[in-house]
């Protein structure tokens, strides 16, 4: 790859600047991406990574600066222009048409060239050939409907869409945050194949291990400005983090050891069953963090939904502080003292068109009102406090949430539930899309909650996070709890063994 670096860059950006109301998102950023190379783009939440990609994709126009491809100046006024020039961005949540097949979804933009008529059979044959070419025959069924696809499959569709036209530059914006480990492997295989075919790949992620696995060079942004570009092989995590945040980060958060609590658990779940989870028994004590580990599809989120009554439950009992509670919906759960921050921030949590303040106060409206009138001073104070504590990067609390960066939107969801301070707090993937520094801040806040006696359940796909944060770990597989480990006995291997226990047909066996 170093030999390529001598040639003209496939994509070169010079002095790119972009300003949004109140925020300078990019400041004179330079960027070069070479064919046959994977370049990682790294930076804190709100550093400007997505904005940069959107400019490359023709979705935003820069205020100033130039783009060139293979030495030729280009200027995109729409995503269509970028596509024609061979530049493609794969967003985390691609638009998939639910009622049509995978094959038609893939060719949706290219259907049918004038004068030609694609028969369904011809279309399908092309897709089958594409799938075989990239080794996805087993990963994606060309006849499946858009609505049946998993997040990973949706992304594959989006990628295959890109590959229907000739691609010269392809960028991925946090592609892996809802993928399982095996799915990540599939994605990486594809990325390497594209790279070997001479495509310039740009890769955005907050996961350091991925950056070291897949990238050849790393470009770091901070506050919208370029900090520098380094060769991956010649750097290490600490150095990258220092470039990102501008200071040394103390080591990854480690939760202090504390004696196992005794007495009455804050939350007891007995024999909880529904369509997705079976016969779940759990106990969480006040002041304790219970981690729930498992592979994607193990039923962890489904368990959380069942506990708060957001999905119907067939059998089982839930006790808060030893008292049985009747829960027939999230509202009852909240009243009983159980709060739940769901996994999918856009679909399940955020009012995208409303302000940061409106979003943070949503679950505490009943606490900050007098005679049904919202006490706005208090509301603002709460919003202000949590934007500060979680360092939500926003010009002010009246900013519309849709204009925040992904990681900052995630922090708004957390802030809503931290503000509620329930007896039991369930957090589903609380640090998804959050940068390294902010993760530590979130862990500190969780720590503070437990110090105040609150019981916290953390669901996470990131094993280091589960291991670092939990006092106890429950491992799930196939909708059941397959084992529980005390923090002292938990290791990655043991958790994984339980996560794949008796599971030789799916993820565990395919390697």
């Amino acid at each position, binding site marked *: 790859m170093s030999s390529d670096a001598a040639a003209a860059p496939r994509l070169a950006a010079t002095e790119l600047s972009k300003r949004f*109301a*109140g925020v300078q998102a990019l400041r004179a950023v330079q960027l070069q991406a070479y064919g046959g190379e994977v370049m990682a783009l790294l930076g804190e939440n709100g550093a400007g990574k*997505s904005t940069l*990609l*959107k400019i490359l*994709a023709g*979705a*935003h126009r820069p205020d100033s600066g130039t783009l060139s491809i293979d030495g030729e100046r280009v200027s995109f006024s729409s995503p269509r222009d970028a596509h024609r020039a061979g530049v493609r961005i794969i*967003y*985390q949540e691609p638009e998939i048409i639910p009622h049509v097949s995978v094959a038609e979804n893939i060719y949706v933009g290219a259907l049918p060239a004038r004068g030609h008529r694609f028969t369904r059979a011809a279309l399908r044959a092309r897709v089958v050939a594409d799938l075989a070419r990239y080794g996805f025959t087993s990963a994606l069924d060309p006849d499946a409907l858009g609505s049946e696809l998993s997040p990973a499959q949706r992304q594959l569709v989006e990628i295959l869409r890109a590959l229907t036209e000739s691609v010269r530059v392809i960028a991925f*914006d946090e592609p892996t*945050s809802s993928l399982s480990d095996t799915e990540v492997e599939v994605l990486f295989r594809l990325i390497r194949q594209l790279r070997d075919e001479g495509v310039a790949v740009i890769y955005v992620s907050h996961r350091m291990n991925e950056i070291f696995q897949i990238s050849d060079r790393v470009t770091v942004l901070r506050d919208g400005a370029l900090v520098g570009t380094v060769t991956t092989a010649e750097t290490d995590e600490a150095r990258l983090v220092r470039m990102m945040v501008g200071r040394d980060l103390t080591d990854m958060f480690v939760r202090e050891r504390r004696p196992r609590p005794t007495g009455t658990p804050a939350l007891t779940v007995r024999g909880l069953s529904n369509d997705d989870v079976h016969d779940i028994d759990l106990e969480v004590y006040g002041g304790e963090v219970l981690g729930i580990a498992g592979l994607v599809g193990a039923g962890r989120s489904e368990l959380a939904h069942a506990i*708060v009554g*957001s999905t119907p439950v067939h059998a089982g009992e839930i006790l808060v502080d030893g008292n049985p509670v009747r829960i027939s*919906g*999230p*509202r009852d*759960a*909240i009243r009983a003292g159980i709060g*739940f921050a*769901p996994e999918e921030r*856009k679909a*399940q*949590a*955020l*009012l*995208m*068109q*409303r*302000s*940061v303040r*409106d979003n943070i106060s*949503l*679950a505490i*409206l*009943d606490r900050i*009102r007098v005679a*049904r*009138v919202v006490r706005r001073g208090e509301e603002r104070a709460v919003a*202000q*406090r949590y934007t*500060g*504590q979680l*360092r*939500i*990067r*926003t*010009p*002010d*609390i*009246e*900013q*519309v949430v849709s*204009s925040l*960066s*992904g*990681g900052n939107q*995630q922090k708004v969801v957390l802030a809503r539930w931290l503000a509620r301070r329930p007896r039991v707090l369930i957090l589903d993937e609380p640090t998804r899309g959050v940068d390294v520094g902010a993760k530590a801040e979130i862990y*500190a806040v969780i720590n*503070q909650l437990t110090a105040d006696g609150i019981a916290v359940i953390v669901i996470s796909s990131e094993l280091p996070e589960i291991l670092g944060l939990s006092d106890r770990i429950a491992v799930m597989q196939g909708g059941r709890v397959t084992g529980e480990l005390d923090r002292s006995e938990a290791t990655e291997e043991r958790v994984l063994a339980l996560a794949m226990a008796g599971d030789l047909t799916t993820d565990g066996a395919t390697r």
Partner: protein
Amino acid sequence: MIDVASPAAASAKRAGWWRGDGSEPVRRNLGLVGVLVLLYLVGALARPDIFLHGGRLWSNELTVLTQASSIGVITIGMTFVMISGGIDLSVGALLALASVWSTTVATQSYGPGVMILAALLVGAGSGLVNGILIAYGRMVPFIATLATMVAARGLAQKISGKLTQIVKVTSFNRIAEWRPLGIPLLVIIFVVVAVLAWVLLNRTTFGRRTVAIGGNAEAARLAGINIRRHTLLVYTLSGLCCGIAAVMVTAQATAGSSDHGNLYELNAIAAAIIGGTALTGGRGTIVGSVLGVLVFTQIYNLFIVKNLQTEYQQIAQGVIIVAAVLIQQFRVAALRRPVPPGA
């Protein structure tokens, strides 16, 4: 926790009201005020004798406001429904039903108080029926209120025998005549309803929840909002507004009729959309809806003072509605175009 001096705190003051999430509606409403000014200029060109003469302009504008008052009250109810993500096609028919019910010979015999009460109860009760069908019967709002629209109009015709029911209770009719401080009572009612609605939408938990449900129903549910009960209340509120408007229209006409409120659903929806209420829910303002109604009525007024035929008025109305919806769609498209900030 250490109280970090966040960037948010530092710039909270500077930001102010016009660059927060309040800014878009504010800009939009200023635009509507601009349209109103434009309409006055058109009026001044078309009928300088009215629009450039202080006294006549004042009395003409009071006429406009009076005409706007009943449809204005309905539009306010509609605004809540639309912000919550629904639609209420039955408003005109509910107005007719309330009007007829409150002016039967039997009801009139109890005097004005009972007549008013009857109108309000019939309105709110019918709205409650809408709410039950939608929230608990899980019917699509469009279909449910379409059904009640037909049924309520039919019931009104049945009760009145399709006859106009003259109101003989003169104190009731005085509602439309009384002008405390020279301002028609109908206009005062409109203003009071608008102010109460503004407080309800912007300052109470009810308003916040309405916005949340329309903006993201799943998020609202997971945040502990009782969506069904709230939906029920929103449609009941819309029905209550129909009851209030029924009193106003009936007093103006000094008669109850099953023909009252014809096409009010169309006008109310159009006015709300012009005022910036999203058809998809989650967005809308009371000020915008009030301005939307005023723009509509002012255009009407121009046709009347120019003695143009009603056919032209209807054509113009259709054009305005189409234009308003198109403008909103372009805005939505413009909002969508930059792919939503990816993670």
